[in-house]
């Protein structure tokens, strides 16, 4: 049945929760909403398959803690993390804790749907997922050596000045490389660049 494909939406903000359920239903997906991580965990025994889309910052148990708890319970549900803050360290932590993807609010519907499809496909064919990884890898291939060096350091959270020092070039030149990296990777923000690097890294 559809139980396999159920998307569990967890957000403490009722409007975000309901609007996302509306969007996903309109896109033909089965959805269940939960107003907290704990409320979701109570329904876990009934769950088999599907994926989780959760907000990171919530009162009570937050998204990162939920990921850890699922790990402890040996429940292998793919998790997509949403954040209204978009800070890079938080996103990196979520990805390291095993999140499939992280999405900044407000998001483009296609970005959310492709992340969810990749999550749902995790147990199955992994075709969407590998297609996504392949697209990112293809972009990385187009970077020059210098650009790749700059990107690795940006993803590690280093500021322009430090990168300039490490590579022995001027901060001004780093900025130009950085601009090129962002354009070639089609990244809108630094956190998006980090996200792509982590997805690509996780695939290797």
């Amino acid at each position, binding site marked *: 049945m559809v139980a396999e494909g159920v998307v569990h939406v967890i957000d403490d903000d009722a*409007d975000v929760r309901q*609007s*996302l359920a*509306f969007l996903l239903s*309109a896109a033909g997906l089965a959805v269940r909403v939960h107003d907290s991580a704990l409320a979701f965990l109570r329904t876990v025994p009934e769950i088999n398959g599907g994926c989780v889309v959760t907000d990171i910052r919530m009162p009570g148990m937050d998204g990162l803690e939920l990921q850890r708890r699922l790990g402890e319970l040996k429940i292998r549900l793919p998790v997509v993390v949403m954040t209204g803050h978009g800070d890079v360290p938080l996103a990196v932590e979520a990805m390291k804790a095993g999140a499939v993807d992280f999405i900044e609010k407000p998001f483009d*519907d296609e970005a959310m749907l492709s992340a969810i499809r990749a999550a749902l496909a995790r147990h199955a064919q992994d075709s969407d997922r590998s297609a996504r990884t392949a697209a990112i890898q293809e972009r990385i291939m187009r970077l020059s050596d210098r650009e790749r060096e700059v990107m690795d350091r940006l993803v590690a959270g280093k500021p322009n000045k430090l990168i300039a020092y490490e590579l022995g070039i001027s901060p001004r030149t780093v900025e130009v490389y950085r601009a090129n990296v962002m354009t070639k990777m089609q990244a809108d923000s*630094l956190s998006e660049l980090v996200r792509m690097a982590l997805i690509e890294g996780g695939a290797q």
Partner: protein
Amino acid sequence: MVNLPLLSADGDVKWILHSLEAAPDDGRDRSAMALALDAAEARLRSILQTVPDAMIIIDDCGRIESLSTTAERLFGYPTAELAGRNVSQLMPSPDREQHDVYLRRYLATGERRIIGIGRIVVGQRKDGTTFPMHLTVGELRSAERHYFTGFIRDLTDQQLTETRLKELQSEVTHMSRYTALGEMASTLAHEINQPLTAISNYLRGSQRLLDRIEGESTPMLRDALGKAADQALRAGHIIRRLREFVARGESERRIENLTRLIEDASTLALVGAREAGISVSFQFDPNADLVLADRIQIQQVLVNLIRNAMEVMIETPNDRRLEIATAAGASDLVEVSVADTGSGLAPEVASQLFQPFVTTKRKGMGLGLSICRTIVEAHGGKIWVEDRPGGGTVFRFTLRGAQIEEAEHGR
């Protein structure tokens, strides 16, 4: 019983117990009187030496009879140099010339202007420097003699402290507003992103549902919903940039086409220009086409400058012309200018125009230009204002150009 000072020829102060002098033959022992006299004199000398305020005693002609140790230090004269001199020596003009007149007027009319009231006046030291002081004057009358006692408090430190305190207060107010702005941006970002997410989700969902509905108007509806969702995302982008910018001061820069960037910003900013009778002209320098910039932020700067220019021109009956131009500047800087034919700026306004919370508008918060400056400076440029030849104002800012060869280094 009143103590009065008199000056002996050698400059020493002799204190005389007037009540005793006034009643010399009441049958008391002269030596007892002399003893009492000495004791009173010693008492007064010790008071003059230790009284923390400066104290000066003058006679009814303004001649200095005696002064306290603090007064000596304050004015920089030893007693010997001042005794018998006119007290006006301790004041700058015009009091210096007028003091004798003040005294005579008081003695003639009895009208009190400072006695028993106290005032802040200016004193002059031996080296000619002046200082603010608080002066209280007391009056002594006895027999035929008439004396005035002045108590002086030096206000130099106090005034410095007050001025500094006021400066600090305004700096702190400014800073706390500025910090509050950063915090506000961060909190607002999160709070506003939630409803924006809901808006965009509902719009995109509706758009998908419309796919399954036949009808004449559905393509138009779909299109409108899509555009509305795009705007919600755009608002999210602006907030994200603002927050990142406030948090790190470093924003995401790309190599951008300046002409296109300006055209996009103008489309948004020039809404209502034609109705207001404003004619707009662009002049793009082909050598200044590529810049290293955060598109959204620089568009915010442009929108701000253009809207300001329009507002100013609407208030004047002049010919309303808006001129936007680019020019390649020195050391690969690119200059952008926005000129209006408004009423121009008063010089005192121009000097602090880019400070936060300074505004000439009745309803403005005074943040627009300060944010412009922060953005431009973070881009390694400068923003300034000039008078437009022929009337009006020109705002100019610079951005760093992105030369082709630099862009190619990255290949």
